[in-house]
Structure formats: structure tokens, C-alpha cells
């Protein structure tokens, strides 16, 4: 059973199932675009957060089998996060239905933060292949680290569109705690290392 789960293509199919359901619903009844804006955005953010949690979890717990399993699939999870973000944009554009109004909303803080975050995810997703990774060398990692400002933009986008803290916080606080723990651990390990060097050196 677990073997089947490990087929890479199957993991992509799993990631695509909610999208297929959303698109089917939309084709059946285009009015649902209004509701799908929210659910597609939420899926995008959840996948982004899951992809982002892998590094701090590894920093905290070290190498674990389940973390290696996730790490091997991080690229797929990240690309899917962009896919749902794109779907989110398409449902939004359809629901708006008028270019003049779409353009007017770009000037609103809650909206341009979303566009900017999606642009960053687009740059990351389009370089999420081995060839781009080789070609960009050290800059590839730099580019992928743009996920941190993207996460910040997404959090602001959600907070300001929604006008309520709770739903956004439920998603981002766990990530924030992990990143804080990672930073604390990093400084602790560094000072321990320095102390050891001072003793032996």
C-alpha cells in the first residue's frame, strides 16, 4: 500500500484532486467562482506552508524518515501551491468579470500584495526543475528564499481581504513558531560551538 503512495506521479495526481473538483464545480455552475476564490486561495496557502515547514522541522528534529519523505516531495508541493494560486487568480478574474474593475482593485493594498506574492511563486515554480537549478547555480537558492517575503505578502493579503485575524493566524502561527524555534536553535548551536572552540582553541 505504502509502495503505491510512493509513486511520484501518484503524488501529483493526489495534489491535483481538489483542483479537479473545483474546476468541475465551476464548469457545472460558473456562479460558484465567487466561493472558489476563497477555497483555491486557502489550498494554495496550505500547500505553501507545508512546503515551508519541512526545513525548520528538519532543523528541530534532525533527519527523520517522514521528513525525508516530505522533502523528496517538496518540489511537487511548492509547484502545486503556485498552481492553486493561479487557479485562485483565474476564479477571481472570472468573478470580477470586468477589466476596468480588475485594474481599479490592483491599487488596493490587499490585492497588490496577492499579485506580488503570486509573481514570486511563479518565478519559483518556473525554476523548479533540475535544469534551472543547475543553470542558476547559487542564485537558485536565493530565488527560492523569496518564499519568505512571499509568505509575508500572502499573510497580509489574507488579513486585509478578510478583515479578520483568526483564519489567517490559524495557518501562519504554526509556521511562525517553527521558524522562531529554528532561529533560536541556530543561535544556541552557534554559541555552543563558539564556546567549544574557545575551550579547545
Amino acid at each position, binding site marked *: 500500500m505504502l509502495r503505491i503512495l510512493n509513486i511520484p506521479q501518484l503524488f501529483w495526481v493526489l495534489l491535483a484532486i481538489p483542483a479537479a473538483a473545483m474546476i468541475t464545480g465551476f464548469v457545472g455552475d460558473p456562479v460558484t467562482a*465567487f466561493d472558489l476564490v476563497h477555497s483555491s486561495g486557502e489550498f494554495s496557502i496550505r500547500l505553501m506552508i507545508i512546503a515551508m515547514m519541512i526545513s525548520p522541522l528538519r532543523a528541530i528534529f534532525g533527519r527523520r524518515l517522514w521528513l525525508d519523505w516530505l522533502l523528496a516531495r517538496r518540489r511537487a508541493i511548492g509547484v502545486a501551491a503556485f498552481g492553486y494560486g493561479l487557479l485562485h487568480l483565474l476564479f477571481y478574474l472570472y468573478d470580477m468579470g470586468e477589466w476596468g474593475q480588475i485594474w481599479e482593485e490592483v491599487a488596493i493594498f490587499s490585492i497588490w500584495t496577492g499579485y506580488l506574492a503570486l509573481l514570486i511563486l511563479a518565478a519559483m515554480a518556473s525554476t523548479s526543475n533540475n535544469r534551472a537549478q543547475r543553470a542558476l547555480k547559487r542564485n537558485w537558492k536565493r530565488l527560492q528564499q523569496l518564499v519568505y517575503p512571499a509568505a509575508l505578502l500572502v499573510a497580509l493579503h489574507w488579513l486585509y481581504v478578510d478583515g479578520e485575524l483568526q483564519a489567517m493566524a490559524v495557518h501562519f502561527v504554526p509556521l511562525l513558531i517553527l521558524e522562531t524555534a529554528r*532561529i533560536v536553535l541556530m543561535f544556541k548551536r552557534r554559541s555552543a560551538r563558539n564556546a567549544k572552540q574557545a575551550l579547545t582553541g
Partner: protein
Amino acid sequence: MKFSQAMMALAAATAMQFAASPAAFATGKMKCDAGPQSGWKSRSVLEAQLKKDGWKVKKSMVDGGCYEVYGVTPEGQNVEAYFHPVTMEKLLVSQRGKVIFKK
């Protein structure tokens, strides 16, 4: 400090800033103290009135004791609007979180 560390610190600092000051976002956008629901006008009356005024109503619900309507104003703006369920008075209109009308 490396780029990644700077970015993480920035993300953490901003997020903590928001976690520490939830006042502006904690309680929803509008509260109505309109008594028991039996005394309220029905939501369909509100929707009919809005449509007559040139609005397009996408969705309506009860939020914070008010009627909350997602729709398009006669000017074409996509908004979230709050109305008093007894007086039907317009209380707040927000365009993607930007307040464009407040009583």
C-alpha cells in the same frame, strides 16, 4: 547575517507584530445590536431593495448581528457591505478590505 536569516527574522518580526496587536482585526468588521431575530426584517427584503437600487447581490448572510452582503455596487465596485437588520441602514462598505463607506 545571511540573506536567509535576515528574511526569516523579518518574517518573524512582522508576524509577531500582527499577533501582538490583534485589536484592529479581532472582532470582525461590524457589530449590530438589533435585538431578537424575530424583530428583524427579512434578508430577502434587503436583497430586493438593493437590486432595485442597482446592486448585484452575490451572497448574503448574518455576521456580527448584522446582515452582510457580498455584491457589486451600482458603481460597479465589488464590495462586502453591512446593513442593520431592523432599520436596513447601510453601516459599512468595504472593497477588498478598504473601507469606502462607514456610517
